[in-house]
């Protein structure tokens, strides 16, 4: 049985017929071919699939696509400016070497964007606690924490 889902993704309206059990992350990756959102686990622990739904960071592996009916989604592909200029949070990751293999990075950035909206000048401890739901195996978190502290400052509480 398929169900029609419609939502806005990165500012554009999209719709498709999907199986009822289709996860939101599967919809994003396989139907919309936005492969920047990654799948790193099957227990909603790693955070590689984090996207923004209606302005809040969520793990897109833990809801089905039809739960996002009518929602406004932002994925990593929609974060930079249309002319390609990096968002201040993305730029902070680059400047602070906050990524290595890049696989966890989109989820880290999406989570950081949500966090930084309400934390314009976070402490190291606040950042570390905010990263509870995102795993990275490469960086040891040191430079991710630095990146988010710098990115949050640059954002000044605004997305």
């Amino acid at each position, binding site marked *: 049985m398929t169900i029609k889902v419609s939502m806005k993704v990165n500012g554009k309206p999209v719709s498709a017929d999907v199986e009822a059990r289709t996860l939101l992350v599967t919809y994003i990756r396989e139907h919309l071919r936005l492969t920047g959102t990654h799948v790193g686990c099957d227990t909603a622990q790693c955070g590689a699939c984090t996207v923004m739904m209606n302005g809040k960071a969520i793990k897109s592996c833990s809801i089905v696509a039809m739960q996002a009916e009518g929602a406004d989604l932002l994925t990593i592909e929609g974060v930079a400016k249309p002319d390609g200029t990096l968002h201040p949070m993305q730029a902070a990751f680059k400047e602070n070497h906050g990524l*290595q293999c890049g696989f966890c990075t989109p989820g880290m950035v999406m989570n950081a964007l949500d966090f930084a909206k309400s934390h314009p000048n976070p402490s190291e401890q606040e950042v570390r606690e905010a990263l509870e739901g995102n795993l990275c195996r490469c960086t040891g978190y040191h430079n991710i924490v630095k990146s988010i502290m710098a990115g949050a400052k640059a954002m000044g509480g605004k997305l």
Partner: protein
Amino acid sequence: MNAPLIGARVERKEDYRFLTGAGQYTDDVQIANQAHAAFVRSPHAHAKIRKIKLDKALKAPGVLKIFVGQDLADAKVGGLPCGWLITDVAGQPMKEPPHPCLAQGKVRHVGDQVAVVIAETLAQARDAAELVDVDYEVLPSNTDAAKARKAPPVHDGVADNTCYVWALGDKNGCDAAFAKAAHVTKLEFINNRLVPNAIEPRAAIGGYNRADSSYTLYVASQNPHVERLLMTAFVLGLPEHKVRVIAPDVGGGFGSKIFLYPEDVVVTWAAKQLNRPVKWTAERSESFLTDAHGRDHVTVAELAMDKDGKFLGMRVKTTANMGAYLSTFASCVPTILYATLLAGQYTTPVIHCEVTAVFTNTTPVDAYRGAGRPEATYVVERLVETAAREMKLDPAEIRRRNFIRSFPYQTPVALQYDTGNYDATLDAAVKMADVAGFAKRKEESARKGKLRGLGYAAYIEACGIAPSAVAGSLGARAGLFEAGEVRVHPTGSVTVFTGSHSHGQGHETTFAQVVADRLGIPIENVDIVHGDTSKVLFGMGTYGSRSIAVGGTAIVKALDKVIAKGKKIAAHLLEASEADIEYDRGEFKVAGTDKKKMFGEVAFAAYVPHNYPHDKLEPGLNENAFYDPANFTFPAGTYVCEVEIDRDTGAVKIERFTAVDDFGRIINPMIVEGQVHGGLVQGIGQALTEGCRYDPENGQLVTGSYMDYCMPRADDVPSFKVDTRETPCTHNPLGVKGCGEAGAIGSPAALMNAITDALGVKDVAMHATAQTVWKHLQEKNHARV
């Protein structure tokens, strides 16, 4: 003129695509008409397969084909080879039981692959896999290395489950040293089994083209050429020129993506049978069950000293768990990469190490970040720290009393260190960690009712793997050189092809720095290409911190050829003698004059050879080089860890972690620091949070997901103080040693030394959970009543 790029903190070229979602990992690749594979895996640790019933699964929607072990046997698909032959103490080759790509009559660990279901969609493949009905006769199993020799045989023909008993060093000399010792320190411990957990799960897409009988495999691999060589020559019996292996963006490896895995073979072979691309991506639970694990040693180690704490000898006995099958490089990890490092940074004159490698009903164990060297460092540095405490010597002082200070230095365990300065890294670490202020901080902790401890680890590793002739004499079945190609384009920009593979290390940046610096051209004019056997001439891949030392040197050799040819072209253009041409930062100059040609002008002349020495030179400017290292490189350093322990809960908090490493010359300090940070947290994970556990009764992996295998998270670890000292490697032109694994090698011992110091106990088992530490506190009556 361009600023020097060697040693510059250049931001990474690869970051933009990763930060904007434009990276392309294997699972992101979609090929027209691709089918999807799901593997049916054994739910038992050890069982006979009585019957496999496929009728229901074959009728399920979308199913195209199901293959079982017999299908592969009928098609003469071979088993997976082991790349390193270990010869045992009796001169006999190690036991190499078959490693079938799909089980042949028996399963030997939970997760062993029994069948593959290929369907139109992934959901259909997974649904149908649930309908495959396998009738098992469950057999008794064993997961514990220490019990393996008396456990039920994992393989026919290996009655005692022993792959080999191997030894290195002078046993009699060692016994004599122990006989005259004033003090002997002895430790027994387990180096805990770890699951690598690159955040990108393994993935593979096999493709077949009937028009020219060629195959293409996309795979999350650290070494596409090795993957191709093993698969074509040893498993599928295909000619290499008909197989293209592409390892696109790879989301972390840490060793686990070195190896040839059954799934890679199966999707490649199946693509021809179906005449369709076949895609498989591991679920995380499959990663836990099938990615080669790391470590799992049971060790007894002793250090003999004279009355002044001077080391006289070391004796080590280790049982190493190989798991159910020999993975690609499993056999060399607890031998060649372990026992040879037991001299550490010290002048210990005699060392003897005996290693028994055993089969158990567990996931195969192979190289994981550090591969043998973390285990060796743990032995040496836990012994040394414990010896200092027993002899009432300062732990830094006992190390200084035993440091190697004269180079080259021949160790009693086969390696020859070319250079090093262990005092420099130790002294710097002591200062940076403010060891002098530790006593005061310990008092402050005590006032808060907490315990504080400090621990050192002074590690060494052998990297830049490896001189092929040496490796070959030790049993390697492959060469360990590296290849590089420098393609200069007509207008002077450069594409470099390297056999090294980058899966987080940032080679696209560091290698470009080397090239741009050497040629004196802007870094924007240099691109690095890797990870595709049809583009790159050859390669042995990335592991063992070898990329810059071996892969980087191959590129330098090719650059030297480019410059040498450029000089000939410039001499012709400038009407000068070749001997008078100097190359300096992008300019070919006639010595002592102002006559010169820019790099781009010479490149242009090579491709538009109107005015060209055709009698002496071919047109074009494209050079390649293979580099086989003269020796290993020997990065070394000192780590100092300081912990605070809560007496009520046993929770360990890392208060300070200082790392001073000597990686030789450094190309990009920003990237080097990142490598150290990441390695440190993997080592801290081993010591504090990560413990792979099997149920001893039934062989189930009970830590099979992120819900029960505790990966270190951001709030489990501190920020780090890191620095470097440089003694350039003496035998490669860049003076580099490699930095990828150091953090994971040195940190477990430093952390466990700190914890045992805080508790005042001789040993605490890794991984030191709060519960483990709390139990020690109860025994020591440290707990507050």
